């Protein structure tokens, strides 16, 4: 058993010819923190359900922890922990009861289950509320309990489907901290799906952007920004007249310039490398910008860019 995931050309078509996942391939190494980033309905949750044996793939090869999800679903389930988008909590049971119940189903003896429940309650900060009905918990507490249930059997691989959706910033940070710790300290492989760019950027070693059931870009956060996002050099002038002159002065076949009133934006692959050139050209014309900024691309830009490209591609079809 290992902590890796291998997916080759996974396809999931629902009744009525709805193609939720259209030929997705990726590899996740043991101990890696991998994020699936995409808008609503992109196929993130369907992919998670395929990998966690909740759905059967229409076609393709999916291996989790070295086991084929179609042939060995029981072995896959033993190796993974899954926190779905919707928490899976019976409101009629107490926090402690739910954890003990979960542990028993993973083969723990009564005594072991008790001990594990105590550890986990401590870990997610629910010790004081352990003997209250979980139905009375707040949204944040339910999320934390759900995460604790996911961790009962110390899975090698953790699937987290939008784990922080609907949480306030404090609870979101608490969940982030815990999953970061699991990845760094315990070497747990993490497959996270999210709509939040900030979340993927902050947490993941590697990101795939998924849209309309297909992966449209993959790389480390830095790589994605570098290959897809462009730096923006922004020049601000006091007078619009100067801005117009400046735009002519700095024009180059190597990059694009745009002017909006007093501001000029230069989009380029590497902002700092053209900076000296731009300043020299402006100096020659005796133009002096009031402000000069270089903005690195954000993952937002990348995300918008790749999902837009796909939209344009679609309209051609």
């Amino acid at each position, binding site marked *: 058993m290992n902590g890796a995931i291998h997916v080759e050309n996974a396809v999931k078509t629902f009744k009525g010819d709805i193609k939720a996942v259209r030929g997705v391939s990726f590899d996740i190494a043991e101990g890696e923190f991998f994020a699936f980033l995409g808008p609503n309905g992109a196929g993130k949750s369907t992919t998670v359900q395929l990998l966690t044996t909740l759905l059967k793939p229409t076609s393709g090869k999916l291996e989790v922890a070295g086991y084929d999800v179609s042939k060995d679903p029981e072995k896959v*389930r033993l190796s993974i922990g899954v926190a779905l988008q919707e928490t899976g909590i019976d409101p*009629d*049971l107490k926090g402690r009861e739910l954890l003990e119940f979960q542990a028993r189903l993973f083969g*723990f003896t009564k005594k072991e289950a008790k001990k594990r429940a105590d550890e986990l309650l401590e870990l997610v900060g629910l010790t004081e509320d352990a003997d209250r009905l979980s139905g009375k918990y707040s949204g944040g507490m339910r999320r934390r309990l759900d995460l604790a249930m996911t961790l009962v059997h110390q899975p090698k691989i953790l699937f987290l489907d939008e784990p922080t959706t609907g949480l306030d910033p404090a609870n979101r940070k608490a969940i982030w901290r815990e999953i970061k710790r699991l990845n760094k300290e315990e070497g747990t492989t993490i497959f996270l799906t999210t709509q939040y760019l900030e979340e993927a950027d902050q947490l993941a070693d590697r990101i795939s952007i998924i849209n309309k059931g297909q992966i449209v870009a993959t790389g480390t956060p830095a790589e994605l920004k570098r290959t897809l996002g462009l730096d923006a050099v922004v020049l601000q002038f006091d007078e619009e007249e100067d801005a117009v002159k400046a735009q002519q002065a700095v024009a180059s076949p190597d990059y694009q310039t745009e002017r909006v009133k007093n501001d000029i934006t230069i989009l380029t692959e590497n902002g700092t490398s053209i900076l000296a050139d731009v300043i020299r050209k402006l100096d020659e014309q005796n133009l002096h910008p009031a402000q000069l900024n270089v903005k690195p691309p954000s993952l937002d830009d990348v995300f918008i860019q790749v999902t837009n490209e796909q939209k344009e591609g679609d309209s051609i079809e």
Partner: protein
Amino acid sequence: MNKQQGNFFSDTLVMTKRSIVTILRNPLIFIPNLAISMFFLFVYEAGLSGIANLPAFEGANYLAFILPVSIVSAAIGGAGGAGQALVKDLDNGFFSRLLLTPSSRLAIVLGPIIAGMLQLVIQAGLIICVGFFLGLEVAGGAWGVVVVLLLTLGWGLAFAGYSVGVALRAKNAQSAQAGTFIFFPLIFLSTTFVPYELIDAAWLKVAATINPVTYLFEAMRTVLIDGFTDTWPIVLGFIVIAVLCAITITFSAVSAKKAVSTD
């Protein structure tokens, strides 16, 4: 810490225990069920006992005749509640969490089914107690009561299995509720109020003959009214119920496998 595939019996036990706990924590659901089945016994006895004077009854006690109807119809609340419990698990996402554990799908559905069955057996016990209070005499004696309870147990498993299967297919409370309507033809297209010989309509005779519940009524009535002199109707009752259980529990376990998608 070790993790391993849990064993089937301990999984079923853990699941059943959890289902019982959730039933007990919702007394407003199970107490009315208890009350209604005893209410039926009272009204049937009060309103219909006169027909026991007809010769076809051969002097049998109408209370003993109608008691099985009260027990069998209690299943709609008791054992039928298993389906409602499952709809709740589907709604709050707990069922997906169960499917993500290594336990067998059969153990997962057996939890609520056994809990529903136990609820029905307890209801039946209370109905029999009320029956004694109203003057019930059981020809089969203490063993007769045991046989009635065993038949109830089988019926509870069968009906809970059916209601869980329907809930898993329907995935919402309304459709699951609609599925339990099969209960009415089962109860009433049978020898419900009068013996087979007194049924007038030919179509009802045919319906009663193919209705498995008829054999359950006959088995219970035999031990209650005649004791163990003729054992064939009792054996037949157990055979029919066993077949019914096998069908409905298989149906629910297969449905659990198919209920996994959110499509």
